[in-house]
């Protein structure tokens, strides 16, 4: 564990703060992109009830997708850079977010939805003002498990020459320095816990009291 507390590793262009920020950037942008894709899809299917089997099939299929293969294929296709990393991580983050949103919307009491329609709300308003707010706990559950997976898996980006905390894991492997490797792994775990806490906080702030959180799993 000496590696973690060596001041030398905390400075410079390859220091821990830089790698930590890179890792956070991968995580944050990945979740954002995945949300833009997965939330509307999950919400639409959840709201209309059409194509539910598609969501289930897609989430299962994507969950089985080996991140390493995606990384490699995109590198071979588009060259090195950020694109392979984001492609692989976004594909990883989509299933939990989409499943969470879909399940959340489906779980809203039909009576509540009927009531909303009854007071003359249009479909769009029913979805945005009634169904989505009511589904937030499950949506957050989806985001939390997506975030956990992305933080843990962003490590593998270093395999194709990218940065982030995975650099320490891969360099530690290359040098056979367990210290560095373990240090990197612990940092990833700590970051994952912190990111999860941020989501818990957000959830407290945005979810109406009385709705309780639930989570789904999966990791690569």
């Amino acid at each position: 564990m000496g590696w973690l507390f060596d001041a030398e590793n905390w400075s410079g262009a390859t220091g821990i703060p830089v790698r930590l920020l890179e890792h956070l950037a991968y995580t944050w942008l990945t979740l954002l992109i995945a949300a833009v894709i997965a939330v509307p899809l999950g919400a639409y299917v959840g709201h209309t009830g059409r194509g539910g089997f598609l969501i289930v099939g897609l989430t299962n299929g994507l969950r089985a997708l080996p991140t390493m293969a995606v990384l490699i294929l995109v590198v071979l296709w588009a060259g090195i850079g950020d694109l392979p990393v984001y492609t692989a991580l976004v594909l990883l983050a989509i299933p939990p977010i989409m499943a969470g949103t879909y399940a959340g919307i489906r779980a809203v009491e039909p009576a509540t939805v009927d009531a909303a329609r009854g007071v003359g709300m249009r479909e769009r308003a029913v979805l945005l003002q009634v169904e989505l707010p009511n589904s937030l706990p499950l949506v957050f559950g989806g985001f939390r498990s997506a975030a956990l997976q992305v933080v843990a898996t962003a490590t593998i980006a270093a395999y194709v020459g990218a940065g982030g905390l995975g650099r320490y894991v891969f360099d530690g492997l290359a040098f056979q320095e367990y210290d560095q490797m373990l240090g990197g792994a612990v940092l990833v775990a700590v970051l994952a816990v912190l990111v999860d806490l941020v989501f818990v906080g957000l959830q407290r702030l945005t979810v109406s009291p009385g709705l309780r959180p639930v989570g789904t799993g999966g990791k690569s």
Partner: protein
Amino acid sequence: MKRIATAVAAVMLLSACGGDPLSNGGSGQSSSDTIVVGSANFPESRLIAEIYAEALSAKGVKVTKKLNIGNRELYYKGVQDGSIDLIPEYSGVLLKHIKKDAVEVAPDEVYEALKKALPAGLIVLDKSSAEDKDAVVVTKATVAQYSLKSIEDLVPYCKDLVFGGPPEFQQRPDGLPGLKEKYKCEFKEFKALDVGGPLTVAALKDNSVQAADLFTTDVAITANEFVVLEDPKSVFAAQNVLPLINEKKASENVRSVLNAISKKLDTKTLLELNAKLSSPDKPEADKVAKEWLASAGI
């Protein structure tokens, strides 16, 4: 953290005992008459390992293959702990791996020093004349821009250039530390890529790095008109391909098979075989190995 992990691992181990398929499930332990052939994680190493394996099993030796293990830092541990018995090696880098301060550079000197440096129980058999070195490689454009011929010419510009190579290159004596010590060349930045693989080639091509560590037998060098810089101060020592083997497994039969291969294997062959591997129809390494063995009459 470590203690928790140990405890958990112990619990898992205990529960894994008793009728568990792991206890005899494949890897690691090999019976005394089977040779486990390993390889590093790049195509040429895999190919030579296939050649060894193919030739040995043709002579009635039982062979198991464990290919693509990783880099020397990793697989050498596997040779030491008995996970593998035989692996193709390169004399100079292996010597530097065992003895960081080795100074020998000529093929025969390196070979003799290597024989002495190896720990008890491990031996190398005859070396082949086939050489494949790490080398500092740049693009044609870079050569023109700085009028380069050798690493020496590169020295004044090192601080402006980004260097790419496998992560382990940062620490090997015949890597960045060697370039720094012998040439006083320190690059602006090091990008950890792969072992003379597609990442390094791509990075050099698109100028993400301006100089890179590639193998001299890599077909990508001629294909992309890259230039190998000369190494007058011999950071990279002679690198003859040879078999590193567990002494206990090196029977007369095994020795004669592997020595016959080394006798036939030269640098030109290596280049041709590498070219064949990366030809458009992408033949499998074991097929290329078989073909070569047949043509070489082994």
